[in-house]
């Protein structure tokens, strides 16, 4: 009996010792880079990112002896992988960071924990406008940067517009007219993928940019201060217009069962006249389309005053430097290159990005030509979710819009739930 107790204790004690030595989650443990020798840079970026490879090739050519190891992570795994690695102290030197708030690897989530290097003194930060700087850091400091913006226009199949004999709508009434004309031809006016991951949230983003955030850029701050709510704002008008469009037959039938790819294909083939998509999904629409199909973009109107239409433009995902990196100098050198005219040009050429700062000689793709002037103007608003205090608001927003489209909830209840999430810690 005593022997058995001794043996059992030994098992327990040795296991405990093992686990205590190896199970540490202190963020000061080893960095996963090869010891910070100043020649090997590790980078956690996106799977299938052609821009990354082109940048690496040039950077390695410019800096003989330097190797950049890029790990491509798919969405949404990138959220868990990068955050887990940062917390456990095993993150790459350069990590993907989103501007503003809204998911686990945004600057608002990571910077307060001390996981990101302060980049305020870096020269490249000067090229960003104040609106962008606002979402690139916290407390007046900058912790990330991105070389691209995401634009949220309505994209139209030019041939489908011509078949209806109309131009891209510039007022909300014209939108409803387009719906009527398209229905008469047995077509869908606006392709809407309502299944998870579809483009259905974007149409609402477009409406509230004109109705809420354009006229009042401080709306989210007022909500935080308790001076404004979703329920008591033009958000109600935006969701009413969504329902009005649905009732007018503007959208794909069986919206909630339609996946993003199906909606993109409808626009590509001309079964739908257009749709509201983020600019990095436009390439997919063009790929789905037959040779020679042309597309055009315009800001999606929410009122009958064409000049009041605000275009949603958000700083895209970018990069920050891991605060525990042993290669900070090399990482900063790489970011300098990433934001240099040469680096920006590589990204424009290989990734068709829309640059986040002025680049000499930049020509937007023909499809984006219709909105490129507005992107550089003051008639833009950041995506609303970049100003939301937690990721839950976005989750509730997406779920509730699905329920509104499915007729399972009222606009009041949907917005009340969003208000509750906004206030949740």
């Amino acid at each position, binding site marked *: 009996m005593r022997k058995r107790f001794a043996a059992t204790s030994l098992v327990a004690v040795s296991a405990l010792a093992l686990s205590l030595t190896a199970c540490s989650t202190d963020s000061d443990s080893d960095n996963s880079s090869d010891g910070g020798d100043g020649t090997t840079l590790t980078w956690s970026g996106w799977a299938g990112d052609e821009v990354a490879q082109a940048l690496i090739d040039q950077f390695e050519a410019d800096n003989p002896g330097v190797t950049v190891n890029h790990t491509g992570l798919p969405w949404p795994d990138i959220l868990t992988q990068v955050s887990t690695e940062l917390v456990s102290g095993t993150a790459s030197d350069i990590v993907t960071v989103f501007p503003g708030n809204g998911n686990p690897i945004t600057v608002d989530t990571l910077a307060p924990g001390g996981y990101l290097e302060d980049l305020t003194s870096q020269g490249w930060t000067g090229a960003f406008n104040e609106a962008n700087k606002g979402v690139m850091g916290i407390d007046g400091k900058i912790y990330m940067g991105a070389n691209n913006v995401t634009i949220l226009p309505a994209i139209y199949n030019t041939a489908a517009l011509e078949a209806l004999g109309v131009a891209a709508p510039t007022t909300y009434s014209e939108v409803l007219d387009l719906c009527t004309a398209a229905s008469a031809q047995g077509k869908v006016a606006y392709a809407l993928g309502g*299944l998870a991951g579809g483009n259905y949230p974007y149409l609402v983003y477009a409406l509230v940019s004109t109705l809420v955030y354009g006229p009042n850029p401080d709306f989210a701050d007022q909500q935080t201060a308790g001076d404004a709510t979703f329920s008591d704002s033009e958000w109600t008008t935006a969701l009413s217009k969504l329902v009005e469009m649905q009732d007018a037959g503007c959208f794909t039938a069986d919206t909630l*069962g339609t996946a993003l790819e199906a909606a993109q294909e409808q626009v590509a083939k001309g079964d739908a006249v257009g749709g509201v998509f983020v600019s990095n999904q436009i390439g997919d629409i063009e790929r789905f389309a037959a040779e020679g199909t042309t597309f055009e973009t315009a800001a999606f109107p929410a009122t009958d005053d064409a000049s009041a239409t605000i275009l949603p433009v958000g700083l895209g995902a970018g990069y920050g430097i891991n605060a525990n990196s042993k290669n900070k100098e090399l990482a900063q050198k790489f970011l300098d290159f990433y934001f240099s005219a040469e680096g920006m040009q590589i990204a424009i050429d290989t990734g068709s990005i829309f640059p986040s700062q002025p680049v000499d000689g930049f020509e937007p793709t023909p499809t984006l030509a219709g909105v490129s002037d507005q992107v550089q103007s003051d008639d833009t608003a950041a995506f609303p979710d970049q100003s939301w205090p937690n990721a839950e608001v976005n989750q509730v927003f997406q779920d509730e819009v699905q329920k509104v489209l499915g007729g399972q909830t009222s606009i009041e209840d949907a917005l009340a739930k969003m208000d509750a999430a906004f206030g949740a810690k």
Partner: protein
Amino acid sequence: MAARTLTPGPSRRRRRNRVSSVWWFVLPAAAFYIFAVIVPSVRGASFAFTDWNGISPTKNWVGLEQFQTIFSDPYGSVAIRNTLLIAVAVTIIQNVIGLLIALGVNSRIKSRGILRVLIFAPVVVTSIAVGFLWKNLFAPDGGINEILRAVGLDGLAQNWLGDADIAIWAIIVVVIWQFSGYSMVIFLAGLQGVPEEVLEAAALDGAGPVRRFWSVVRPMLAPAITINLMLSIIGGFKLFDQVFAMTKGGPGGATNTISTLIYQNAFQLGKFGYGAALAVLLTILVAIAASIQYRLLSKQEG
């Protein structure tokens, strides 16, 4: 105890030595198991009593608050209901289908070999791939609706994944399609153990096929039934991949399971403590279901 003193046997000390020496052999494996499984699990479970967001260096002890949230959170109650529905529906339907197919391909039909392979094939496909495959089949203009319309059953064409009431059943159908072959294989193995002569004797005594199955085959299949029920109920409770690939818990959270909520809260919403509380709840549910089932069926086998 009393009986044992009457039976002469090896001396007690030798037997005790043998028992304690066994512990030395267990030591390396046990140490590794405790290090790799027990300690991380306990550490993970301890987060359920904190408000940790998965990122912050600080976490506060909040006691049972996260568990109370599960039952007050509308998403939580829907997810628990869905998880129970999936576990029960999948367990019953999948095993009935698996058993019927096993009985079918256990007969002397010519193509039984190829049938077994075909029916087992979906099992070896990754669940996430199966999810994406069926997501396309269930699309409004996807394969299922196309077939229904082609045979004139337009009225039966549905918005399979977009209708909150139907989507959960679409997921259940996919899980059953994928794993019935697994149940079939286990039942087949059990059926191989039923002696031919006993069945013949029962037939000679005038037992029809139903009576033969109920009185001869069923009792002999008890171990296979136990394994199948255990596997499918635990798999049903833990279901994640198919839901994630097909609906991500939508529309409007109508198809969330406890597993998808765990993922969403811990890794997407930065509510690690709440995610851990859901995980602890799921562990308790699985443990209760498994132990009840095991007791009931071991009685039956005994």
